[in-house]
């Protein structure tokens, strides 16, 4: 009888000691690093923050839109369509390199597609990077692999089924006048195939606060788009890496400037 009482007492002591143990961690259920086993909050909670990346058309410092006309040299180009793929988006800081979005199709004639929002842990980041176009893995898929409204889906009309097949990384279409006679003629540049894929890195301090949306504005400066481009040359539809296609892709990447 006495033995049993001692055992009960011992058990109570052990339970009391165990119950009094405090495991530090994030105890807020709404935090992204919530620790279900923690019972002592150590102020380590991290919360989601939104980072919005928005693309804007500019001609130098002047806003530019679809159906505006760009003058350069003795030429004029009336923009009617501009779509391009942004892929493998990352934002980094010294300790992390985090992948945040696989692919987005920017259509400058569709306001909702001109930005995308990333959900990241709050904090400070030092670099934004993304690809212009698609990497090999993405480009080896077909619209049949996706829902029709996916950025790589059928309804985007960005896929060539020819051999070798490819998504069109950049679709630049409009009308050109190279004779200063307002005699515009159709012009379209479609840049495609994996060897034109470019990765851009922008060093910038980006601070995202919990439950806030930080906006990063990226301008596409139309003024540099046709630098060193021979306008009399046939547009590079099928070229893998023709000099003209490489020049246009290079110009496009140079035209992207972070605010």
């Amino acid at each position, binding site marked *: 009888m006495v033995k049993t009482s001692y055992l009960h007492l011992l058990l109570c002591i052990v339970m009391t000691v165990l119950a009094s143990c405090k495991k530090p961690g994030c105890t807020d259920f709404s935090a992204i690093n919530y620790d279900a086993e923690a019972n002592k909050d150590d102020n380590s909670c991290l919360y989601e923050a939104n980072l919005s990346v928005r693309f804007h058309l500019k001609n130098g410092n002047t806003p530019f839109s679809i159906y505006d006309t760009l003058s350069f040299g003795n030429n004029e180009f009336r923009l009617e369509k501009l779509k391009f793929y942004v892929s493998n988006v990352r934002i980094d800081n010294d300790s992390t390199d985090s992948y945040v979005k696989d692919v987005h199709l920017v259509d400058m004639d569709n306001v909702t597609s001109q930005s995308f929002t990333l959900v990241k842990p709050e904090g400070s980041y030092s670099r934004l990077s993304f690809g212009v176009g698609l990497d090999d893995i993405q480009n080896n898929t077909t619209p049949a692999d996706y829902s029709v409204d996916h950025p790589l889906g*059928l309804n985007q009309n960005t896929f060539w*089924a020819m051999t070798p097949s490819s998504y069109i990384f950049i679709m630049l279409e409009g009308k050109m006048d190279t004779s200063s006679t307002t005699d515009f003629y159709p012009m379209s540049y479609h840049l495609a195939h994996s060897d034109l894929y470019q990765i851009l890195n922008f060093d910038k301090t980006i601070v995202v606060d919990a439950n806030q949306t930080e906006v990063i504005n990226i301008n596409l400066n139309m003024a540099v788009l046709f630098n060193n481009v021979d306008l009399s040359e046939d547009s590079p539809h099928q070229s893998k890496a023709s000099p003209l296609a490489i020049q246009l892709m290079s110009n496009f990447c140079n035209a992207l400037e972070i605010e």
Partner: protein
Amino acid sequence: MNKFLYIFIPFLFVSCQRDIPVFESVEYNPTYTYLEIPTGFPIPNLPNDNPLTEEGIELGKKLFFDPILSGNNRLSCADCHFQSSAFSDPARFSIGIEGVAGEFNASAIINPAWNTTNFWDGRAISLEEQALGPVTSFIELHAPSWQAVTDKLMAHSQYRDLFKMAFNTDKIDSSHVVKAIAQFERTLISGNSKFDKFLQYEALLTPSELRGKEIFNTEKGDCFHCHSYPLFTSNEFHNNGLDPEHLMHEGRYRVTRDVNDLGKFKSPTLRNVELSAPYMHDGRFQTLEEVIEHYNFGGHNSSTIDPLMKKVGIGLGLSEQDKQDLLNFLKTLTDTAFINNPKFQP
């Protein structure tokens, strides 16, 4: 005598029963079904509020072929959309019940489940919305009103039950009618042409067809931009240079009121194009040879000509052999199983 009466009276009652209307309530027990998606096609977006059922599809087919939807009970959807013509009209302009012709060639109905808009000017987004228009249109079926149509359907000996079975409704309205027709139309899938079989290593193309494929899919013919695989339409709106500026039709402008859309029409699918003459929104070309000749000429320049029409004023420069090869390739898009499919027949 009494015995005779006992025998006779029950017969009187039995014979009376024939005059008493008997309503047997049909059960709403829909059989949900799905589309058979051809290889190479993605899964289409289907409306959540109109799931495919066998009952709905059957009802839609019955309505599609039934002149009851027209004002004079003499014209059906199928009278302007012939299966043998890939559900298009071989007449340049269809004639409605009032004897009046429209201004557009009746579009072929091929793979409409993947349509993002309907009609040449894209004025209807969904197939349900599309089916609303022709029934009361003066130049088409010209029913006096949708109410008049649904009254006829309610009075019909079969339709009340069929609508009950498809939509669990005792009161038929226009939304049920167009939903049923849309369900049937979504089953009109064509993906079994010689070209499809070629892609699946089940058929060989001739040397001419292969050359035509190359012309189609390269800058030489430049067809693929607006007519890309697998649908052979981009579902987008283009001005392909049919007319000079002063003769351009309003086209897509009628819907958007954007001057940049003047003269633009939805690019049609080229699947079964061999069967769907005449061609273009106004059926101006009777043959595929004329169509090819138009593109070989390059088209007329205008303020809204499509940027993809890069050879305007110059022409494609196709030789006679090139044109024949391209024509031969286009004919590989014919799907005889589609135009003979008994599921699409009344």
